[in-house]
């Protein structure tokens, strides 16, 4: 993976406030295609650090490399046009339609009209706002959540490799925020931009970041991936900032597939009851998971069910709700475990194929690692 953005000893001292460094010798590298969340208490220098990248704020000393080039030596206007910019208060242009807002940077870059309108339509589709309905509306006719979707689409319009986002979902109500976060992560799966994402909310930082850059008084306290930040906080400040529920946060972050056993006790529905009984005692387990010819989940059988009269497993199978996607969070997995008597949940993939089982013990084992 190549480094897309590099901070090297970057320091900012505001004129008129010489006694303190708003950003103090900040150094870190960000790989291409990763989201880095800049997080920390209010006033710790997040916005200042971010705005030095597109030179809305000039640095006092140090160097920022954008794709290997010194940002300070690049033409300011060109630099900014190659970096998407999304702010908390959105700042859509009220005099322009939604389509015109999104088209701003492509137009500045001189794209031809056909390419621009194609791009506008695909972006609107990407942020789940039907083009025919929204293209010709004005910002004031949209809700806050819709406006920020447009803000994000506008930031991506000219396909910038880098995006800067300053608390983009900070002014949105919690339910819509969660929605926008998920939507954005889904988009990022596809577009793989290098993103600097400012937030003061540690939960958002953990959720959105491939890397977390935790700042305090302008200084870097810890730069790590979310799992590392939660398991190995660099000091008491990080521990406090992350919160006492670190373990629960990890449950949010980790996936069922990280903790599950990948050798589930399977039995095909067409096998005989005799075979099933044999397998049950051989594996020393209480349940077998019944699957069809393609490995898809049908249900479970236990010794009581196998005691019934019948020929094939299919005749005695008991349907079950105790299953979950392997890509779901461990938190959801744990919740499923607690809501069924089985003592475990069955992990399935997108096609409902059984890929593993998850017990409380598995989760504990992973968390203890």
């Amino acid at each position, binding site marked *: 993976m190549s480094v897309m953005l590099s901070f090297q000893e970057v320091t900012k001292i505001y004129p008129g406030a010489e006694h303190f460094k708003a950003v103090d010798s900040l150094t870190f590298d960000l790989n291409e295609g990763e989201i880095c969340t800049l997080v920390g208490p209010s006033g710790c220098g997040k916005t200042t650090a971010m705005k030095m990248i597109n030179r809305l704020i000039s640095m006092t000393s140090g160097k920022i490399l954008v794709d290997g080039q010194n940002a300070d030596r690049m033409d300011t206007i060109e630099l900014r046009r190659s970096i998407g910019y999304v702010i908390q208060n959105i700042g859509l242009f*009220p005099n322009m*339609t939604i389509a015109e807002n999104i088209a*701003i940077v492509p137009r500045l870059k001189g794209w031809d009209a056909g390419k621009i309108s194609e791009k506008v339509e695909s972006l609107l589709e990407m942020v789940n706002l039907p083009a025919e309905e929204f293209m010709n509306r004005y910002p004031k006719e949209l809700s806050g959540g819709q406006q920020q979707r447009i803000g994000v689409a506008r930031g991506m319009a000219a396909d910038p490799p880098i995006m800067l986002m300053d608390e983009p979902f900070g002014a949105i109500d919690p339910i819509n925020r969660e929605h926008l976060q998920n939507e954005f992560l889904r988009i990022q799966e596809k577009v793989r931009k290098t993103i600097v994402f400012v937030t003061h909310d540690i939960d958002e930082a953990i959720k959105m970041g491939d890397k977390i850059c935790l700042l305090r008084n302008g200084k870097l306290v810890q730069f790590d991936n979310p799992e590392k930040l939660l398991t190995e906080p660099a000091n008491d400040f990080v521990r406090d900032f992350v919160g006492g529920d670190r373990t629960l946060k990890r449950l949010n972050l980790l996936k069922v597939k990280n903790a599950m056993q990948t050798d589930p006790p399977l039995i095909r529905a067409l096998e005989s009851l005799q075979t099933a009984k044999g397998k049950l005692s051989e594996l020393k387990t209480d349940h077998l998971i019944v699957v069809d010819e393609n490995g898809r989940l049908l249900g479970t059988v236990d010794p009581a069910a196998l005691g019934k009269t019948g020929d094939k497993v299919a005749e005695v199978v008991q349907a079950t709700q105790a299953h979950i996607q392997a890509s779901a969070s461990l938190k959801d997995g744990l919740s499923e475990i607690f809501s069924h008597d089985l003592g475990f949940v069955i992990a399935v993939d997108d096609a409902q194929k059984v890929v593993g089982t998850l017990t409380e013990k598995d989760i504990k084992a992973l968390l203890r690692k």
Partner: protein
Amino acid sequence: MPTTIISSLLKRFLPLAITVAVVVWLYHHYGALTYTIENTKEFMRFVAEHIFLVVVSLAASVIVGVSLGTIMTRKGFEKTGPAIMALVNIWQSVPSLGVIALAYGFLPLLGLSGIGVLPALIALFFHAVAPIVRNTYAGIEAVSADVIESATGMGMTERQILMRIELPNALPVIMGGVRTSSAIIVGTAPLAFLIGGGGLGFLIFTGIALMDMGILISGAVPVALIAMIFDNLFGKLEKIVVSKGIQAEEYQTA
């Protein structure tokens, strides 16, 4: 609903009908019609002079006012801007007749004539420029900082931000200033006659001097009509040039 149609027709045409009725009555009652018909050629010349005074001084006010108001919002003018604004506000409080008198008395000191069309134009211009300066300044200052920040961050040049963001978004406020200026100019233009600027003021002041209501009305009524027409035109212009995204609701549904 037929009743709403009728009421909207009434709303639209009643003022017009009343205006027409009053004008007709004035013309008929004071014999202004006879005077106007008998002196058509002269009358038309006064109208032309009057409109010339209004249009030229208003155009100058718009050009200078918008430029000055804009410059005051630029970097490096953070301190001078408000100072100029204060000056402009004081200047605007000088009464119309005072401005005309000042032009008459002051221009000769600069080696210019105090009598004629030019001094009249200068006086009208100075009298009317303030609202445009003030509204342009206020309109641009009122454009949200977030809008400017995102425009800058996306790589628009200062000039692009001014032309595509600041001025278009300030336009409703600027247009308000232009309408005020136009009203001031139209109302003050008759005084131009006092310093030899011509226009419909001739008929009004002659009418007063001769105590002839016919002559007076044949000047005063067209002055009032010109004022109404100008205001109406600017109202229409505003709807055309101001983006729908920032027009007040009432304009959209009208």
